[in-house]
């Protein structure tokens, strides 16, 4: 194996993904640098890196989005390569160009690929041009009147989306065609507001669709392989909560077709590095949705079944190496599920929560992996995304993976900040999930899953007992339990 042309990697990200990248980089013998806003001081990523460079900004997010500051940090720390992780600058073609212009290696695809796939209208046109399937659609061009007519001709229901969209922002489902024009005006206004781009496209909306995506890897020598698909249909507000591989919805023949299609799209785009081709799947048909030109949050499920370290592959490809394996070498075994642990209150509309992590015990055991970005004592604020950690399990089959996920959730103790873990436990225990019968609107259609069930009497008694005894111990001073309440001490026997 040839040596990489860089020995120091700067990680331009935070949280679990920064730590994850540092782990693989160290395994390859690289020196690691992480940029860090003061809100992340003392984070596991900052602790793990060989060097930390402070970055500043009006907000934490602004600091991590400040490309010039990050390139300067690379220069000052002697890093020759930058890994952007996901989010922040990962799909910013301008940043990728600036990194290259500074004489540094960008661990990601070419700026051209980021540009192509970042513009949904161009990406769809590219995919259609190469003969791959997209949902029946109409794209806005210079003739707004004909756009509405073409959209109307598709028939209801329709999905109106901003061209530059992401994260579900500005997306609108139109079931009543009388409202079409009104919804188009709204979507254009939201697209302009969120993305500075009011162009739209409209596609036939697949009812109860599934979201299936395929991990691809390409190198600079023209090789592209796929690493199988992921099912990402369990979502709240268009954001994924649970991802798994393989998808329980695909037959072997469909799996082969969807994976080959993804690899074909990446090949046509001359794609280099790790990427994900996303599809909508419904009524036995799949349609290209978009391509993400970065490592994704849910990459570990692919790693668990294929045994391939995706960050390592990214670094090797960025270093100019050819992929060391071909499609025939990629094998997949067992089943893997990822659960996203969020600082949020599921029963209160998935609103973010805050607090200080007073205790943190991560689950361990066969087939269990935790990618966590927070440590004990750290404060969880609303400054960043609410994802605290990812719990990833692997089993010989889906049933074993679900059992291991249930066990691991029970062993995952995080005190001081409300999380969605109890909700995740209810979710994976739900018969519909067990049967693999989910779709992207499943959680919206089943709001009762998010509701906190009343405590059973036995648990309530245990909690009362521990509450009373912790309080009691204060007065007794015997058990060295920390003070619960300064004014307590009035127990009378």
């Amino acid at each position: 194996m040839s040596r990489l042309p860089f020995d120091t990697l700067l990680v331009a990200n935070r949280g679990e993904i920064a730590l994850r990248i540092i782990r693989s980089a160290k395994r390859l013998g690289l020196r690691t640098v992480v940029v860090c806003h003061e809100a992340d001081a003392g984070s596991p990523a900052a602790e793990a890196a060989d060097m930390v460079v402070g970055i500043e900004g009006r907000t934490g997010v602004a600091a991590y989005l400040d490309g010039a500051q990050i390139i300067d940090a690379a220069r000052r720390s002697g890093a020759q390569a930058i890994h952007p992780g996901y989010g922040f600058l990962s799909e910013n073609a301008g940043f990728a160009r600036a990194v290259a212009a500074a004489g540094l290696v960008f661990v990601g695809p070419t700026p051209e690929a980021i540009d192509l796939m970042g513009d949904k209208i161009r990406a769809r046109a590219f995919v259609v041009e190469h003969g791959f399937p997209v949902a029946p659609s109409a794209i806005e061009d210079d003739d707004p009147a004909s756009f509405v007519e073409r959209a109307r001709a598709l028939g209801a229901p329709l999905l109106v989306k901003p061209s530059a969209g992401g994260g579900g922002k500005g997306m609108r489902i139109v079931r009543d065609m009388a409202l079409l024009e009104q919804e188009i005006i709204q979507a254009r206004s939201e697209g302009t507001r969120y993305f500075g781009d009011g162009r739209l496209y409209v596609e036939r909306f697949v009812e109860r669709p599934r979201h299936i995506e395929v991990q691809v890897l390409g190198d600079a020598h023209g090789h592209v392989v796929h690493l199988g698909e992921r099912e990402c249909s369990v979502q709240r507000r268009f954001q994924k909560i649970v991802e798994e591989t393989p998808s329980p919805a695909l037959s072997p023949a469909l799996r082969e077709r969807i994976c080959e299609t993804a690899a074909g799209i990446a090949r046509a785009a001359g794609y280099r590095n790790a990427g994900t081709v996303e599809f909508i799947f419904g009524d036995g048909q799949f349609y290209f949705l978009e391509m993400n030109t970065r490592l994704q949050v849910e990459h570990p499920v692919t790693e668990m079944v294929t045994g391939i370290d995706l960050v390592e592959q990214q670094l090797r490809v960025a270093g100019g190496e050819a992929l060391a394996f071909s499609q025939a070498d990629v094998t997949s075994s067992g089943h893997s599920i990822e659960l996203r642990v969020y600082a949020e209150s599921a029963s209160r509309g998935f609103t973010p929560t805050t607090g200080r992590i007073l205790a943190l015990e991560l689950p361990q055991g066969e087939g269990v992996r935790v990618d966590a970005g927070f440590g004990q004592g750290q404060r969880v604020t609303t400054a960043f995304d609410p994802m605290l950690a990812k719990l990833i399990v692997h089993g010989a089959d889906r049933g074993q993976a679900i059992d291991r996920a249930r066990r691991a959730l029970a062993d995952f103790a995080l005190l001081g900040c409300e999380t969605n873990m109890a909700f995740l436990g209810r979710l994976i225990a739900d018969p519909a999930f067990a049967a693999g019968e989910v779709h992207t609107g499943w959680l919206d259609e089943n709001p009762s899953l998010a509701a906190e069930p009343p405590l059973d009497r036995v648990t309530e008694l245990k909690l009362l007992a521990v509450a009373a005894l912790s309080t009691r111990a204060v007065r007794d001073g015997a058990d060295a339990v920390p003070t619960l309440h300064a004014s307590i001490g009035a127990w009378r026997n």
Partner: protein
Amino acid sequence: MRHAFDIAGSEIELWLAREGAGYRLHRDGGEARVALSAEGGLRQMLTVDGVSEPMLVAIEGELLHVHVGGRSHVIRHLDPARRFADADASGGADMARAPMPGTVVRIDAVLGQAVAVGDPILVIESMKLETTIRAWQDGRIGDIHVSEGQSFDRDAPLVSLTASEA
């Protein structure tokens, strides 16, 4: 003396009596023999009627964070002094004050409305725990000192009741 805790939004009263090396926990509708021993760090061993189970316990102010049986819970100790201070003041215009900093989630009553003991008046949220402030006596809503969505500090006046004339 009875103490009250807020668990998952319900307020539960209980009291302890010493019994041998442990205690007897009494609450309306039941009792149990209970003991708690430190296992090191945040680990505690809880024994209820002879059955022992390990748990993690972390304390922060009035909040008790507990991980037991595969789940995390938050329990709030309701300060007896604060809880009863205003209500105990016999006669006159009584006022409920905020037990801790928080935000007003909802107001369920209007000025001048007649309320009976236990009627919900407003819902507050402090450190992710929702608490319903209920009428502590029969009377009328004299004043609501906060509005929906408003943040308040500890001890801030929340609502005043005027007692009904008997």
